């Protein structure tokens, strides 16, 4: 009996030592596994970004044109209940868009200034980290994309997004989509069903065809508002966004969070 106990203790001590010796190795392996794919360097050469000139968007008709163009391009519903509404591009007050760039001594009206907001297509998107089905992911060209086929409607991404850029279809959006007199939808873009999350995609379907986002196209058609939104490739030093970012003083939303938005604002 004593002999057995001695052997048992010997084996246990050996095993504990063995595990202890292997620990540093295990931590290295865990570190490599824990590294998220989105933290890796981006391999694609294109990096889409947007610059919004707040001053040029002060007119109601400019912001209206943006959201209306988006609504038409993506068959967005117009749901009166604000807790059910679907927002891709919309207006918030300056103090809510830039809560960390607001102070009580700001000139009158600045804090209440209307600012266009949309998905920031972050370099380190928190929504992507939490999605359990990889229904949302960051493409090589910087667009944070949604795969509606995979979305299970858990809304983790909505909880993770610090900018409130994602909307959930609490109900079938179809009755709230404005149709023409023949009952036809505004565009061929697939509609969404109840139970999925959606957001701005930088008009990936238009970019694929060599076009620009619908909102950018809409503001450029308004006299005086041209350049209110500028869309382009950050990786190309000669693109419109690159030139603007070099020339103008720009800010982005809540930089302290480290998500690194791709949407910049000229204040």
């Amino acid at each position, binding site marked *: 009996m004593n002999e057995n106990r001695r052997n048992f203790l010997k084996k246990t001590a050996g095993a504990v030592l063995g595990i202890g010796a292997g620990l540093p190795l295990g931590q290295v392996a865990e570190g490599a596994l824990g590294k998220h794919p989105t933290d890796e360097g981006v391999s694609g050469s294109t990096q889409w970004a947007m610059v919004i000139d707040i001053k040029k968007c002060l007119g109601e008709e400019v912001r209206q044109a943006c959201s209306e163009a988006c609504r038409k391009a993506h068959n967005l519903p117009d749901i009166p209940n604000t807790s059910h509404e679907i927002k891709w591009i919309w207006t918030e007050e300056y103090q809510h868009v830039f809560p960390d760039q607001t102070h009580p001594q700001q000139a009158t009206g600045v804090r209440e200034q209307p600012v266009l907001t949309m998905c920031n297509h972050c370099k380190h998107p928190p929504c992507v980290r939490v999605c359990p089905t990889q229904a949302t*992911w960051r*493409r090589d060209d910087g667009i944070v*994309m949604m*795969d*509606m*086929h995979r979305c299970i409607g858990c809304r983790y991404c909505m909880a993770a997004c610090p900018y409130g850029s994602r909307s959930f279809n609490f109900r079938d959006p179809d009755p709230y989509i404005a149709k023409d007199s*023949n009952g036809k*939808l505004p565009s*061929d*873009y*697939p*509609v*969404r*069903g109840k139970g999925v999350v959606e957001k701005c995609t930088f008009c990936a379907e238009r970019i*694929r065809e060599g076009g620009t986002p619908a909102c950018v196209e809409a503001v450029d058609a308004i006299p005086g508002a041209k350049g209110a939104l500028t869309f382009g490739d950050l990786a190309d030093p000669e693109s419109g966004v690159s030139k603007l970012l070099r020339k103008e003083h720009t800010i982005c939303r809540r930089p302290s969070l480290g998500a690194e938005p791709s949407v910049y604002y000229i204040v």
Partner: protein
Amino acid sequence: MNDRVKIVIGLALFVVLATFPIWHAFGKSTPAPPDLSRPLAGTTCVENAAWMTANHAQLLDQWRDAVVREGKMTYISTDGSQHEMSLTENCLRCHGTREKFCDRCHNYADVQLTCWNCHLDTSPEVQKQ
């Protein structure tokens, strides 16, 4: 042993009920497969017709992932020809409309489709209406 009669009756009843679908359908002809809208243009499909009949669902799933996840738009079939990976912009350009093609067979086979819950039939014939 006194229950033999009851057991035999019970067994007979069970056999009759269990085989109900077989003898009920006996002698009845099954409805003919639906007349699908014939391709309007082109003579060959992406793959051969028999393979497409059996595997179109898997092919469309593969196309979906390739287009949405990898941004690829062109499918190279086993005979080397290239095709755009799109149900609405490619398949239905030859096969007509959802109603005349997809729905007829899927209603016949009672296989529910979810594609059209979101995707819109953009066939020229439907758009004209």
